[in-house]
């Protein structure tokens, strides 16, 4: 007799399955509650400690000695050239020179704080990564009042008891509801899961509470519709598959998905001098409208996009043509030394691509580069490769073709090997010419098998940072930059416009995504065996 056959057993089973549904809901609600707690705690800690430091600076400005918690501070005088070394700008704190031999370690902080406050006005900030020290500075009579204050206590601890109590209460409500019938079960899940809304409202305001309530309601609805039970059954049925997938999935989630989402989100912010402001779609509008630049300006998005598309098309075509041609030749049985050629031709693939790129950069240098050396040995004019877009682009394509064709060749070789030999032989017996055999046997085999490699190659080329960055370096004036290098420059070489760079990255991502979904069959080809 199974447990569910008796009335008590049925209630027990219902309670157990309801507790499973509750656990899923409560875990989500707990994550929201904890998030709002941490944000709330950090905000109130910052406000409290900033106020304490500001008050200390005020006291110093008034000429009082602030009482407790002051680590260093005082009235810092305006900078004066030192008498002995006029290039040294010295400041005094309460009559004592800042810095110099044997000075306390806090002097540097005081000096810098005074400098910043003179330039930017009163300010207050944490002086160490842990947030244990707070620095406040404000201009005052006779200099800058600076206070470095130690926080007397850390931020408030997590109310473990409260959370555990609420979770237990919620579990009891959910289990009780489940024992009473289907309708009370949904109600119990909604109320039990929503129990955490109360502290969330306290910490994160109505938005956090609404989020928790929505999670609880969604959990109850999913349970009612049997979605949770089905997901649980699928998880149990395929537990081996999920177990195999989980480690990679988790790693990807933490180290790729999280940065990716953050990267996508940064596109909606503007970064200036260390502060982030939400600007909505401004970055995207700025980029997609060309940023007020003419279409012929290398910094115009559409100019760069054009270069990128040309770059990708040229490279993929060359890789494909050279790779397939070589693979076809290397398949000929009359050819001597096939193994030697094969080993030689994958050499470029084996060399790290940044080394290749730097070598080609050296070879295209106008004064000492080998390419110009060959040209002048042939009696031709030397070319200043990196001073015009067309030649710089050519140099980039040369370097990338050199390093990229072996991949296509190896893939094509593999495909050719898989074509059954008897097909060719039968066709030959039937009198088909070499060209006919190529068009009617080889090509139909090559095309579908090469499609994923071409798609992958196109994605790699579209985002090929190293070659562009190291061969032409975007010369002249950023004209030969592609979207990736352009975005990199906005982030790291043109005034830390991180938001703009992130928006570029998002646009690149969307272009490639749309192109893959529409244009190729990489995912669709993958049919169940």
């Amino acid at each position: 007799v199974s447990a569910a056959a008796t009335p008590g057993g049925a209630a027990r089973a219902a309670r157990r399955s309801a507790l499973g549904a509750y656990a899923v809901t409560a875990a989500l609600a707990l994550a929201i509650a904890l998030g709002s707690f941490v944000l709330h705690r950090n905000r109130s800690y910052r406000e409290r400690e900033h106020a304490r430091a500001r008050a200390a600076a005020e006291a110093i400005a008034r000429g009082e000695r602030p009482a407790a918690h002051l680590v260093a501070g005082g009235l810092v005088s305006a900078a004066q050239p030192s008498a002995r070394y006029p290039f040294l700008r010295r400041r005094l704190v309460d009559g004592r020179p800042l810095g110099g031999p044997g000075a306390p370690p806090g002097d540097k902080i005081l000096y810098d704080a005074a400098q910043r406050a003179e330039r930017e006005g009163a300010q207050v900030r944490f002086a160490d990564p842990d947030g244990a020290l707070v620095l406040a500075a404000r201009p005052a009579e006779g200099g800058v009042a600076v206070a470095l204050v130690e926080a007397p206590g850390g931020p408030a601890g997590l109310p473990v008891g409260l959370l555990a109590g609420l979770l237990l209460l919620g579990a009891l409500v959910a289990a009780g509801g489940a024992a009473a019938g289907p309708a009370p079960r949904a109600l119990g899940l909604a109320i039990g899961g929503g129990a955490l809304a109360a502290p969330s409202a306290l910490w994160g305001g109505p938005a956090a509470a609404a989020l928790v309530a929505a999670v609880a309601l969604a959990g109850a609805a999913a349970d009612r519709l049997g979605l949770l039970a089905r997901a649980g059954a699928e998880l149990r049925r395929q537990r081996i598959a999920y177990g195999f997938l989980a480690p990679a999935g988790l790693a990807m989630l933490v180290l790729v998905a999280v940065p990716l989402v953050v990267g996508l989100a940064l596109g909606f912010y503007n970064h200036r001098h260390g502060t982030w402001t939400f600007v909505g779609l401004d970055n995207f509008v700025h980029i997609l409208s060309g940023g007020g630049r003419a279409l012929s300006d290398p910094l115009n998005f559409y100019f760069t996009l054009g270069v990128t598309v040309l770059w990708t098309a040229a490279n993929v075509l060359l890789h494909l043509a050279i790779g397939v041609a070589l693979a076809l030749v290397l398949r000929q049985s009359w050819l001597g030394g096939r193994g030697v050629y094969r080993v030689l031709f994958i050499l470029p693939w084996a060399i790290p691509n940044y080394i290749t790129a730097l070598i080609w950069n050296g070879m295209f240098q106008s004064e000492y580069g080998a390419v110009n050396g060959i040209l002048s040995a042939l009696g031709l004019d030397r070319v200043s490769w990196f001073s015009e877009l067309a030649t710089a682009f050519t140099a980039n394509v040369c370097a990338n073709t050199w390093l990229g064709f072996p991949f296509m060749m190896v893939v094509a070789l593999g495909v050719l090997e898989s074509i059954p030999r008897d097909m060719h032989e039968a066709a030959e017996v039937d009198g088909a010419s070499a060209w006919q055999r190529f068009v009617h046997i080889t090509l139909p085999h090559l095309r579908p098998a090469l499609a994923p490699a071409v798609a992958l190659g196109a994605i790699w080329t579209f985002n090929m940072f190293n070659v562009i960055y190291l061969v032409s370096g975007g010369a002249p004036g950023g004209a030969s930059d592609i979207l990736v290098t352009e975005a990199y420059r906005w982030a790291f070489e043109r005034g830390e416009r991180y938001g703009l760079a992130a928006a570029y990255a998002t646009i690149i991502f969307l272009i490639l995504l749309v192109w893959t979904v529409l244009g190729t069959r990489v995912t669709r080809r993958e049919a169940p065996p």
Partner: protein
Amino acid sequence: VSRARPPLALRALTYAGLSAVCAAVLYPVLLVIKKAFEPGHSFALSPSPVPEEVTLEHFRALWSATGAGGEPLLARFALNSALVALATTALGLVLSTTAAYALSRFRFAGRRASLTAFLAVQMFPATLLLMPLYVLLDRLGLLSSLVGLVLVYATTAIPFCVWTLKGYFDSLPRELEEAARIDGASAWGVFFRVVLPLARPGLAVTALFSFMTAWNEFILASTFLTEESSYTLPVLLKSAVGEYSAQWGLFAAGAIVTSVPVMALFYLLQRYLVGGLTAGSVKG
């Protein structure tokens, strides 16, 4: 593949073409070798790939470069690079093999979504994951540590490895696994004793790619690693041809030292390359 030999003219043309490709492939490599063994730091004007004078001064300079504490830098960087690359390979291989096996053999909810996700993440420019990753690693306390670098490299290598390996697993017959299951082997037993030994070519290629990803990367390494003691070889090489002075001799010597291990590995595993890379796509 026809047994008949084409006419002599065609054969001559083919050999001429192949020789031209050989020359184009070898020329830049020979230039680097020449530069590495030639005295002086700038490239000579002469396009000849044969050095006029042979010296070991660049290798000696590379070898004898020491850090602040007098420790030899080259050995240190090479050790760092090797540690990072090997750890990346091990981690990437373990994670992507199991994931690819699940994606190839099981039909579970979310399978198609996972496959698409593994493909899609390759489209986000890795260079621009730099900022969020920087913040994330900083929060995790792994900035400027080789462990952080290994984690980042392994995760960037995983998507490609998963797709390659899944293709390879798809091409393996399932009958053997079913027979092993009937004989009483567990799922893990089948995976370890039947699937992995069969998938050796695919695994070799995947390992090679993970290794090369880590060994060759310099943007993330030069951004994250702030202490000289944790630099990897690419960071050293990039600094040899920095913005202010281009020491091509030193660079060329360093390039040879850096490339040789990768090339050795590449040629060791190259017989697996054709099969390992294309098995899945051919069958599909």
